[in-house]
């Protein structure tokens, strides 16, 4: 049978992507993912003061800028440590960084749920509602980024994390304000997103009790289930997490085995036909992101969904929204136990170090984000940024198709495939930088 090629522009995904589909016998056999434009952030950084990366790299991405800041500061701190300067952050600085990062992830996941998943799914299954989902998304995202900015000054594009800690020196009044904003976010999660209390939600650990979830998330799960979408979108079933975080420790998950990982085995390679570089770990492709974190952390409900539906669209979507609950819960605890009388920053503003090399890893909304900085003569000589979407959206290698491509292969229509694609929470600007 003749093969059919169709090109499709995908928009409203933090930029745009072009997908070239190849159909064979009515099913998708291959997809080429092309991202438009290389902005050259890594090159722009060359010759600059190492700390300028704290200002420049957040501008890789308008939606996950804070994760870039944390990766950048960790890269410098790791570089200092490699050169013999001890960097022992106060628990206050660590907790504040964890909190602000959690806020950004919540913001991201909620926008994706309401501004991408729900409207796209309704369109796909022909059950469009009159709901203004964006108003819900922006209500929650503006509240939680307000909590972030109490410590970080602003969102997007804060540079409040500096080598040795954070620049803020909060009071109890600040913490109280943040607590009330987190509380407001939890109320939204309970009353609008899921229809159950956070405690009840967090106790859900089996597939058979998923029906307890109501609200907008319940609606999404129902639409997926009732349209036979629970098992589509499966990929290579291999997962990797590089950053230790509240959500997961680092590690990789293959079948039922979890093992350790080291970021030095991560390799980047140029790909033909796109400006995005492909990433592998010991020459193998892995999925990163909330599903990977859920698998490595062995989150009960994620593991149980995976047992039933493998690494399908359904499991992937669930794992991402589920993180909102985990992050809200963690954020609440972080603020409750935050100790204010420790130093915010343990290093001097000016460390006379002119040669170092460091790697910073963080779990961003879409998965592991890695920054590598090489400094000589006090200036950045090389900077490398490996983003989560480079893992999930690469073309693949000789042996296998890329993670998202594999998930789309076998789909019967472009609409089905693009929905599977969007479920990866695609970010075009991060992929090409």
């Amino acid at each position, binding site marked *: 049978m003749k093969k059919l090629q169709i090109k499709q*522009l995908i*928009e*409203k995904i*933090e*930029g*745009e992507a*072009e997908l070239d589909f190849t159909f064979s016998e009515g099913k998708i056999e291959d997809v080429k993912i092309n991202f*438009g434009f290389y*902005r*050259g*952030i890594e*090159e*722009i950084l060359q010759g*600059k*003061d190492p*700390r*300028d990366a*704290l*200002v*420049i790299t957040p*501008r*890789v*991405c*308008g*939606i996950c*800028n804070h994760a870039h800041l944390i990766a950048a500061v960790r890269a410098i701190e790791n570089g200092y440590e490699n050169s013999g300067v001890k960097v022992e952050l106060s628990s206050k600085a660590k907790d504040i960084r964890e909190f602000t990062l959690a806020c950004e992830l919540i913001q991201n996941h909620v*926008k994706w749920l309401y*501004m991408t998943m729900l409207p796209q799914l309704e369109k796909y299954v022909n059950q469009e509602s009159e709901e203004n989902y*964006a*108003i819900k998304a*922006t209500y929650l*995202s*503006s509240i939680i*980024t*307000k909590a*972030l*900015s*109490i410590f*970080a*000054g*602003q*969102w*997007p*594009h*804060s*540079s*409040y994390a*500096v080598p*040795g*800690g*954070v*620049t*803020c*020196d909060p009071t109890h009044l600040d913490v109280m304000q943040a607590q009330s904003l987190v509380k407001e976010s939890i109320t939204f999660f309970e009353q609008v997103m899921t229809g159950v209390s956070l405690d009840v939600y967090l106790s859900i650990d089996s597939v058979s009790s998923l029906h307890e979830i109501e609200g907008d998330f319940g609606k999404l799960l129902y639409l997926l289930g009732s349209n036979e979408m629970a098992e589509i979108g499966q990929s290579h079933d291999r997962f990797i997490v590089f950053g230790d975080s509240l959500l997961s420790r680092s590690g990789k998950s293959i079948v039922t085995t979890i093992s350790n990982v080291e970021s030095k085995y991560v390799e980047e390679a140029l790909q033909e036909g796109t400006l995005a570089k492909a990433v592998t770990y010991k020459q193998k492709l892995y999925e990163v992101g909330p599903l990977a974190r859920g698998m490595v952390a062995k989150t009960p409900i994620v593991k149980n969904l995976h047992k039933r539906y493998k690494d399908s669209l359904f499991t992937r979507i669930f794992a991402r929204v589920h993180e909102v609950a985990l992050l809200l819960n963690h954020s609440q605890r972080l603020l409750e136990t935050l100790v204010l009388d420790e*130093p*915010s*920053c343990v290093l001097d*503003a*000016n460390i006379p170090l002119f040669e170092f090399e460091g790697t910073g890893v963080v779990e961003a909304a879409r998965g592991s984000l890695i920054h590598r900085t090489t400094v000589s003569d006090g200036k950045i000589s090389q900077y490398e940024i490996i983003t989560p979407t480079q893992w999930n959206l690469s073309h693949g290698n000789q042996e296998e198709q890329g993670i998202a491509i594999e998930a789309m292969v076998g789909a019967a229509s472009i609409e089905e495939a693009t929905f599977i694609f969007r479920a990866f929470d695609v970010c075009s*600007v991060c992929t090409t930088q």
Partner: protein
Amino acid sequence: MSSQTRPKLLWLQSITCNGNTHSFLNHPDLFLILSHFELVHHPVLETAYTMEDLLQKKVSCDVLILEGSFQEEGFLKDGVEVSSLIQYYAGQAKHIITAGTCATFGGIFKQKDPAAISGFCFDLEERTMRYKTYASRLISLPGCPIHPKWLSYVLLMIANKRQIEIDTLHRPVELYGYTVHTGCTRNEYFEWKIDTKNFGLKEGCLFYEQGCQGPYTRGSCNKILWNDTSSKTRVGTPCFGCTEPNYPQESLFSTKTNMGIPAKMPLGIPRRAYLTLTGVVKSFKIKRFTERLLDYDK
């Protein structure tokens, strides 16, 4: 108001990180502001027209918001030069808003290829060859990113058919007539020339050592707070001058000095006036500024 009479609003992206888009989504009155317009296309919000409609020039617009740096050749969407798209829609718009430092002056992404990449009507502070064509309709909103309320100010002024007063770089004076220093909670330390001892402290001014550009950067960050809550300097981060034409400068966390005096003076202050005042205040030792703020009188 019916959609027939509402001005058509188009948000068009060029070379960008989407930071201005996400900043504006934080506006507490987002949908109220948008209700004055017919949103024909937007990078993330649902709209009646698609990107393909936009690329095929099937859309018309009255108010154009530009986000991202400008490049004449080589930045394409689906095979279409974005520069031609921008000029097509700018040609018919009654108001052109360059949202962010990239669209206004070139910004960070200009540094990748300084000869080819610039703002739409300005290249740093210089007027581009396009300036003349669009100047009468141009509003500059520099900032990396823009503050959501700066944009809503412009949109509501347009919706209410009010004249927006602008300066020579087309920035609204009601927003950029201030400096970032205005309203900074560390102003007392600035007045008495007390620098901060390190990052992470409530005390001290960041202008003398830590690179703060607040005193000579235009913007109302400490008057119209970020996320309705705070600002960089309020959380102890220096201002990096992100609204200025020459942003970003080098070595953003340290102050360039001449003989121990900041190389760049606060906006409009003659060096001699600054030095005279500094000489006077430095001749006093103020006990309250030698200790932790909350420990005084304890």
